[in-house]
């Protein structure tokens, strides 16, 4: 296997990018990520993006966003209709093949023009679930009640996770929901939004984008003082129908973490892309995280959930901690689908 590292990251997120197009959003981010390591598009061996036509409301919308990259003369390029974390996985595979030494990965989402909790109904199967338009909060409410009734988690623990996000986000200028003063009592006093879930249990939806540069071997050492070396990366999926799954668990997250070697050594920090406190709890259990690991110092996806980018943002947040020397071994996580159906785990280390 080749040594491959995240050498540069740039991201932006806010509550609603009402007057900014996806191209206008991505031009400065892509320039910033490439520029920080002194690269232009001519130096990039492979470019891969993640986004959703459903959010953009247009087929092949990602082709427009290539204007932010600069695709003349022609570039080697690909796209996934998934969170950018899966675009990063594709770029990692491309770098493993060995024909190129650098890759640009980016993703973005603008869900503010619609109601994300309703739009997400369209990711459900089109026969049994989709036609009922069960919104994302209500579906998560069904899972939450099973978790609480079975003792898989307590309301107190869910409130603690919400407070961890609110407090952590207070230090993060990219978070769209934060409160340095929030306490468990404040959260427990909230009226339910999708009984038994409270507003602070549900991620605050956001618009934004993220760009990441990957490089292999000595090229990474040239470009970055402290590359975030990808020591393990894996993604797995569980069945779609909620009835056939144990909703207190996410076996695919457990498997991905094991395959990525998450538990092989101490983790200083983990950044999790869980859109609900219930799912953040499930991930902590499935990933085997211990109290010594700082979970979601950024506030995580709960503090700002940019659809299609929340996972790549977590990987970027985790890699940044290696670049800055704040951590030596970190985990970035991405999820997709109903009830954490699909999970990606990326373990990174500094030298």
């Amino acid at each position, binding site marked *: 296997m080749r040594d491959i590292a995240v050498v540069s990251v740039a991201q932006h997120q806010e509550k609603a990018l009402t007057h900014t197009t996806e191209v206008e959003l991505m031009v400065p981010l892509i320039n910033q990520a490439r520029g920080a390591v002194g690269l232009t598009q001519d130096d990039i061996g492979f470019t891969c993006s993640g986004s959703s036509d459903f959010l953009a409301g247009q087929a092949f919308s990602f082709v427009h966003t290539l204007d932010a990259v600069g695709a003349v003369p022609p570039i080697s390029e690909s796209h996934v209709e998934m969170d950018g974390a899966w675009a990063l996985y594709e770029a990692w595979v491309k770098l493993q093949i060995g024909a190129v030494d650098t890759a640009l990965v980016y993703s973005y989402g603008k869900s503010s023009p619609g109601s994300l909790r309703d739009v997400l109904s369209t990711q459900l199967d089109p*026969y*049994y679930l989709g036609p009922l338009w*069960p919104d994302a909060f*209500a579906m998560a409410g*069904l*899972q939450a*009640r099973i978790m609480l009734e079975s003792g898989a988690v307590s309301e107190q623990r869910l409130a603690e996770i919400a407070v961890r996000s609110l407090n952590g986000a207070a230090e993060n200028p990219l978070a769209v929901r934060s409160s340095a003063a929030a306490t468990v009592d404040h959260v427990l006093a909230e009226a339910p939004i999708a009984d038994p879930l409270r507003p602070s249990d549900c991620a605050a939806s956001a618009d934004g984008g993220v760009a990441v540069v990957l490089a292999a071997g000595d090229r990474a050492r040239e470009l970055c003082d402290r590359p975030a070396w990808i020591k393990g990366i894996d993604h797995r999926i569980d069945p779609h129908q*909620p*009835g056939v799954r144990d909703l207190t668990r996410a076996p695919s997250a457990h498997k991905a973490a094991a395959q990525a070697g998450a538990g092989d050594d101490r983790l200083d920090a983990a950044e999790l892309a869980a859109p609900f406190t219930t799912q953040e709890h499930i991930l902590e259990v499935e990933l085997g995280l211990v109290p010594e690991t700082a979970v979601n110092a950024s506030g995580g996806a709960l503090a700002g959930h940019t659809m299609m980018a929340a996972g790549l943002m977590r990987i970027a947040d985790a890699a940044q901690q290696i670049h800055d020397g704040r951590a030596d071994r970190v985990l970035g996580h991405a999820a997709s689908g109903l009830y954490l159906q699909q999970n990606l785990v990326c373990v990174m280390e500094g030298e």
Partner: protein
Amino acid sequence: MAERLRADLVLEYPFTRTTGPVIGAFLTGLREGIILGIRRPDGTVLCPPTEYDPESSEPLTELVEVGPGGELVSWTWVDPPRSQSPWDRPHGLGLIRLDGAATPMVHGLLVSGPDELAVGMRVTARWRSEREGHIADLEGFVPEGADQ
């Protein structure tokens, strides 16, 4: 000035899809007022039915009638109702394990408030009078005895 040319533009998805031998049978069953599950190799029944076993991926073929009564496994309350859903008033959303099935299905709960819902309670299907082979042929589920 020349007469302006006009043409109607209809934005459409002009394809039909077959729903296949399993989902199609389930939807046809709904039109007839029955609910079908499908038997797994271990003898348990999945409802709603899937074409393949979720663990072993083996094809599944033996359809079995389940319900119309069942047990409420989980619930939440939807208020306000979502604009595109089949329901126009606040309602419950539930995971309902029908009698004869080992797995629960998602559907609406037609009660007047969340205090009428509890995990473990008995519920039963309420049908629409006009049915077309669609998941919303089931109007939803009501507490057992409510429609008698």
